[in-house]
């Protein structure tokens, strides 16, 4: 049993305010943020489908919004979030099978996820420009 010797409640030592950001925690929070962001983009997907179901007019209106500058920037963010969550998720599935837990592997796979998602984002946009440019 604790003895009440102090006049005031014990302070809590700082946690996130001082703890050094590391690849481990940064990628974990990134996986979470991208997951939440992708949930929001999933809502956009449903709106898009609903618009398409209601006819050509609503569909083309939505296409214009997506084609606008802010729409394209959001789309770029969504692309990166998608690949980061995909690659990060696969990394998590590997861990869940009790593999690649050595620190060296944790860091190597972490950087690989970052580089791969950036590369996939760039490649998919280039491909898209290429195809859209030809049609």
């Amino acid at each position, binding site marked *: 049993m*604790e003895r009440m*010797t*102090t*006049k*005031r*409640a*014990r*302070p*809590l*030592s*700082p*946690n*996130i*305010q*001082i*703890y*050094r*950001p*590391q*690849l*481990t*925690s940064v990628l*974990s*929070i990134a996986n979470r943020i991208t997951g939440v962001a992708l949930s929001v983009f999933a809502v956009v997907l449903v709106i898009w489908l609903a618009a398409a179901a209601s006819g050509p007019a609503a569909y083309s209106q939505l296409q214009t919004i997506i084609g606008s500058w802010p729409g394209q920037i959001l789309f770029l963010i969504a692309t990166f979030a998608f690949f980061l969550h995909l690659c990060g998720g696969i990394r*998590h599935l590997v*861990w*869940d*099978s*009790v593999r690649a*837990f*050595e*620190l*060296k592997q*944790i*860091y*190597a796979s972490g*950087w690989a996820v970052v580089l791969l998602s950036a590369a996939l984002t760039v490649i998919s946009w280039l491909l898209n420009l290429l195809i859209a440019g030809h049609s």
Partner: protein
Amino acid sequence: MPRTDAFIVRSSDQVPKHPLLKRFPVPRNFGVTPGSRIERGRTWAAPAGAVRTKAFEIYRYDPDGDDNPRLDTFEVDLDACGPMVLDALIWIKNNVDPTLTFRRSCREGICGSCAMNIDGANWLACTRYIEETGTPAQIYPLANMRIIKDLVPDLTHVLAQYEMIEPWLQATTPAPDRERLQAPEDRAKLDGYYECILCFCCTSGCPSHWWNGDRFLGPAALLQAWRWLTDSRDEAAGERLDLLEDPFRLYRCHTILNCTRTCPKGLNPGKAIAQIKKMIVDRQS
């Protein structure tokens, strides 16, 4: 070949060469209750005549006063003190401010007493070289703990969480007359787990334990849970798993792996937890 050292951490004792960020971009008092806010403390100059000095910023809290925690700065005479962070703390206590309070015993990384947050990561003060610290060196108690005084955290709760996993051998078979036999390869399964010194660097560095430490057991207790689950002499695996299978106790671990990054004994709590989860999969399917 490019030096990958700056990016790839190979063992937990490695100090980052070029940390991208020193701390998360959140306000200093983000989510901090008024009584826990850290105020500016005083600066203690080096003794006259000191040539090589280094500044140490140290978290102070005096339970007998009414003041909030504060951050004091001490100028340490490097020529007069030993090479480790713990030596600097002892030098300060002996030569500058005898009220500076911290735990230590073995000064060789085996008792776990001197665990604290050094330059933003948890480690043992006795096994961290002063040379490896930044300028100024930043010394806080273990993160996210109730503080008794200065660098002394109240470990009551995390020790109770350790007690909860029943860290002793359980068997219904009557005890043999001689020692309980164990095959060498089964004994080897305890390697990497039995060495835990209960310093709680891992639990105190786990963000999931920060937000849900009242219910999430944390990496230290869970590593110990695995140490008994994987012991071939133990007969209580079923009950142990029942105790652990809970959305908060076990499954609040999101494999962030701050624990593995920070364990000063080079152990792997994150892997231990993944093995517990896998054992539950094996039991279910």
